């Protein structure tokens, strides 16, 4: 019974996701159309006549009414066809498949960093509220949240890449080609991306842990003679796990958005680069495709988070 209801829940969530996808891509499409200039101008070259530009518009269907263009795109997308890039002719799905792994690697590494630094830091801070560790950690967290990604990225490049030559300054290697090299390239971008996340995770861990530690059952555990450390690490962390899972899911999505800037600094050919270039050149099928893919990823991550929450927390969904 539990199995069946879980599938129903997931199915319903996916159905609810459809309008979100439509809305997001529609807004982006509209914004692109509102901007001056279009891809036909780029395609036609510098010295093209107005007639030539018009002709190109006709060829690509850019002269059709706005809603018709969007409808055509959506119809194809619904059938799994994200169209081709107007500029390069490459299938958008192919471009995404090439770029997304770079982005995913950075985001995944940043997320891992944020968790393995943030959770122990937050827990240590909560162990002695207002103690030395707590104040130091929370000050670090404030800095971590305040520092902009791109600025940190540039600092990291100038120190670790240019001055000390420990990590490469720019570029990326596909994970499938050389995992070690790929990770080596991704370390600095991930660090730059993770700083805010570590701070966020540390704060959330501390806050929820303090909440849990002031609940009634902690008094029972103390009355049973459990060590304070056992109460904190065993009971405290399991109780905040649900909270942390939710935070992790949100953080993943935020990092996904923030990676655009970091990819630019490190010249990484990821999703950020893809969408930025496409947007500048009004290559709307690519922009639409990337937005579509991102929204799908975000929805899947949210779904995964919910499913994991339900497994960790016995009170949910059983």
């Amino acid at each position: 019974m539990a199995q069946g209801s879980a599938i129903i829940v997931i199915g319903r969530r996916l159905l609810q996701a459809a309008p979100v996808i439509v809305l997001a891509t529609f807004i982006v499409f509209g914004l692109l159309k509102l901007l001056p200039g279009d891809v036909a101008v780029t395609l036609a070259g510098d010295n093209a006549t107005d007639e030539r530009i018009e002709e190109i518009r006709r060829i690509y269907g850019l002269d059709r009414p706005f809603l018709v263009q969007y409808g055509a795109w959506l119809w194809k997308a619904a059938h799994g066809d994200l169209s081709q890039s107007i500029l390069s002719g490459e299938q958008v799905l192919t471009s995404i498949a090439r770029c997304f792994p770079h982005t995913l690697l950075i985001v995944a590494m940043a997320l891992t960093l944020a968790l393995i630094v943030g959770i122990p830091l937050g827990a240590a801070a909560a162990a002695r509220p207002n103690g030395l560790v707590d104040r130091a950690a929370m000050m670090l967290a404030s800095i971590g949240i305040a520092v902009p990604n791109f600025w940190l990225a540039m600092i990291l490049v100038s120190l670790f890449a240019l001055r000390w030559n420990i990590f490469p300054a720019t570029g990326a290697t596909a994970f499938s080609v050389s995992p070690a090299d790929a990770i080596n390239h991704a370390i600095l971008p991930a660090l730059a991306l993770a700083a805010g996340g570590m701070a966020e995770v540390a704060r959330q861990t501390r806050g929820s842990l303090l909440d849990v530690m002031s609940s009634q059952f902690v008094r029972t555990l103390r009355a049973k003679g459990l060590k304070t450390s056992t109460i904190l690490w065993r009971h405290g962390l399991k109780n905040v796990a649900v909270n942390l899972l939710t935070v992790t899911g949100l953080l993943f999505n935020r990092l996904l958005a923030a990676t655009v800037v970091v990819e630019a600094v490190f010249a990484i050919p990821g999703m950020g680069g893809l969408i930025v270039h496409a947007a500048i050149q009004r290559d709307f099928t690519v922009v639409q495709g990337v937005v579509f893919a991102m929204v799908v990823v975000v929805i899947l991550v949210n779904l995964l988070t919910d499913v994991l929450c339900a497994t960790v927390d016995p009170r949910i969904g059983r």
Partner: protein
Amino acid sequence: MSISFAMAGGRQEATRDVTFSVSPGERIGVVGESGCGKTITGLSLLRLLPEDVAHISGRLDFMGVDLATCGQEELRGIRGRRIGMIFQEPMSALDPVFTVGEQIAEGLRAHGNMSRAEARDRALEALRSVGIAAPEKRYHAYPHQLSGGMRQRVMIAGAMVCNPQLLIADEPTTALDVTVQAQILELLRDLSDRGNMALLFITHDLGVVAETCTRMLTMYAGEIVEDADVDAALEHPLHPYTSGLLRALPRLSARRSALPSIPGRVPVLGQMPAGCRFRQRCPFAVDGCERPQALLDAGNGRRVRCWRFGDLALPGVAA
């Protein structure tokens, strides 16, 4: 022993000179109106009050160890193993994300090396001893999957699993149905008899005390005002406050009623009169009651905090 709290306006004494002793197998009921200091007295015995604001002065002698001053490790060894404690709300008193079996077993494992399997067996045994049917199944249940009475049984199993010499129960049945309440009371009485375990039973409910306990401590405004065997206290109370409580009680069997009301209000913390704290509400107050009242020996192991106890023939519970 006295307890004070650091408050915005300085230190405030919440209980004063709460002195009593508990012998093995004895079941002491602690009664008194809300806020008189019953809970904090119970918590102080295991030093479970928030250490940053609460201050305990005096001694808490437990078989030669002063619980008020002993080291953290020694204290931890006593908590759960030699003194157990259960609370009013078994739902919030249990960790919601661990199975009840795990929670009982981990109390065992906190005291000495014990294999998981052995702890599990003893936890199952404990579940069985508090009258839980199909303990193997219940072991894997989460607190929210159990009924209120079942949860309180689990709490008791967790507190009893190390066979403590003293069990502190802070209103363990207040949140339960009447029938379940009766079962839990019987269980507690039974466990105390079987293991010669002392019980400190904190309650609003005089009927519960009459049924369950051997001795009764009456507290008023942070002080013990009477200490007597239950029968004696019920039939011939020596303190006007105890008598007032008893007379306001309709019938002993009507157990649901909260503490009956006595006209007047309890003096607030920080504005305690120097003399008898019950004087504003006492029908027998005379000149002289404004003098500080000590807990006087009334013979036969009875104590009472009223200098007029010899002159007053107070009515007890309506027979």
